[in-house]
């Protein structure tokens, strides 16, 4: 590592998103966007997550088109295994009738899993390629080309997922209980007395809001931490060995588990929203 490029810089470089924004001089990138405020876009997060989402839909749609009721091919059997697994979990937990919960769960599970699996791509490969492309074709400083390839380490993405789920929680709460029923649930629990309405409201609102926040922060925290450890490991040893290997093996467990937890909690929250007390 060059002297002007320290380990801290290396880590920071890996943990910075590629940003795009519009300024007075037109479209600007990265450091030029420091003052862009809210209207800045993490193009790497967007590109990778949408790319992986399209990959997921492409794989599953092509399987769905070729789906036969006869003897399935191996690919179809695998896709059906995933679908059946999600369906089983939805049925075990969610007892109402809903056309959206099962496909929502499938989307969350597979999409989050695919994004999490980006964590297993060695941390230097994609930023290096991006830096080479940036410096070769656009004449940029490679240290100013950012590429954070794991979309779930971006709070924007995890919060987007959680807010989507939160909207559905609100929608189902109001659809199942009506506006008045939902308000009653917020104000008359756990202490069913008019005098406790403000206390109840504060308690229940915190409970309600804690759900999407915990969903988003859990996924973000786990993935950000594991990515950070990968980056730290990358600064040690000989070509990241031997520490990289056990940590990656460990993540074969952690990454699907996080995707599964996100899906399960979504189902649980929605089934809670649909239940009358």
């Amino acid at each position, binding site marked *: 590592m060059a002297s002007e490029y320290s380990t801290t810089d290396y880590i920071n470089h890996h*943990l910075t*998103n590629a*940003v795009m924004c519009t300024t007075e001089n037109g479209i600007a990138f990265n450091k030029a966007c420091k003052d*862009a*405020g*809210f*209207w*800045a*876009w*993490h193009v790497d*997060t*967007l590109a990778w*997550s*949408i790319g992986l*989402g399209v990959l*997921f*839909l492409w794989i*599953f*749609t092509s*399987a*769905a*088109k070729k*789906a*036969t*009721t*006869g003897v*399935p091919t191996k690919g179809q059997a695998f*896709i*059906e295994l995933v*679908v*059946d697994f999600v*369906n089983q979990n939805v049925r075990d937990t969610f007892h109402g009738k809903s*056309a*959206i919960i*099962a*496909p*929502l769960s*499938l*989307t969350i599970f597979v*999409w989050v899993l695919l994004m999490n699996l980006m964590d297993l791509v060695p941390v230097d490969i994609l930023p290096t390629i991006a830096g080479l492309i940036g410096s070769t074709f656009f004449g940029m400083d490679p240290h100013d080309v950012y590429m954070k390839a794991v979309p779930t380490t*971006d*709070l*924007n*993405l995890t*919060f*987007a*997922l959680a*807010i*989507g789920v939160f909207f559905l929680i609100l929608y189902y709460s109001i659809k199942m209980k009506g506006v008045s029923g939902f308000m009653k649930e917020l104000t008359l629990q756990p202490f069913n007395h008019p005098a406790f309405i403000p206390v109840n409201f504060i308690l229940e609102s915190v409970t309600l809001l804690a759900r999407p926040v915990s969903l988003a922060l859990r996924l973000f925290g786990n993935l950000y931490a594991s990515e950070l450890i990968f980056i730290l490991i990358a600064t040690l040893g000989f070509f990241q060995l031997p520490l990289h290997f056990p940590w990656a093996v460990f993540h074969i467990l952690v990454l699907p588990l996080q995707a599964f937890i996100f899906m399960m909690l979504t189902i649980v929250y929605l089934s809670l929203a649909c239940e009358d007390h």
Partner: protein
Amino acid sequence: MNINATLIGQLIAFAVFVWFCMKHVWPPLLGAIEERQKKIADGLEASEKAEKDLEEAQAQVAEQLKDAKAQAAEIIDQAKKRASQIVDEETQRGHAEREKIIAQGNAEIEAERNRAKEELRKQVSALAVAGAEKILAREIDEKAQADIVAKLVEEL
């Protein structure tokens, strides 16, 4: 790591993905799975039914075989009985025939004997009359002595 417009983009992407999954991915896949499950269930049921049918058929066959065997045994039994009966009857009939023939023969013999006796008696009487004629050597009115001759014949 700050919240920015990416959030909105991701939210839209998420909604579109879920919508697409709901429209084009989930229903055909789950439909195929459920239809196959139904097919398999039907197949299992059919095979179970076939097995039961087979068992029933086998039981029926066994029953019919038993019946047929019993019937055959009965027929053989009857035939044997009938045969012995026929033999008995024929024997009896033979006996009766024999008896009848013997009796007939006996009666014929008896009649023949009686006839011969009669003839003999007549001839003896004629002979006796002739003898007497010769012995007396004289004309005897046959008619006057007829009663004596008849008496003689009666005594023979």
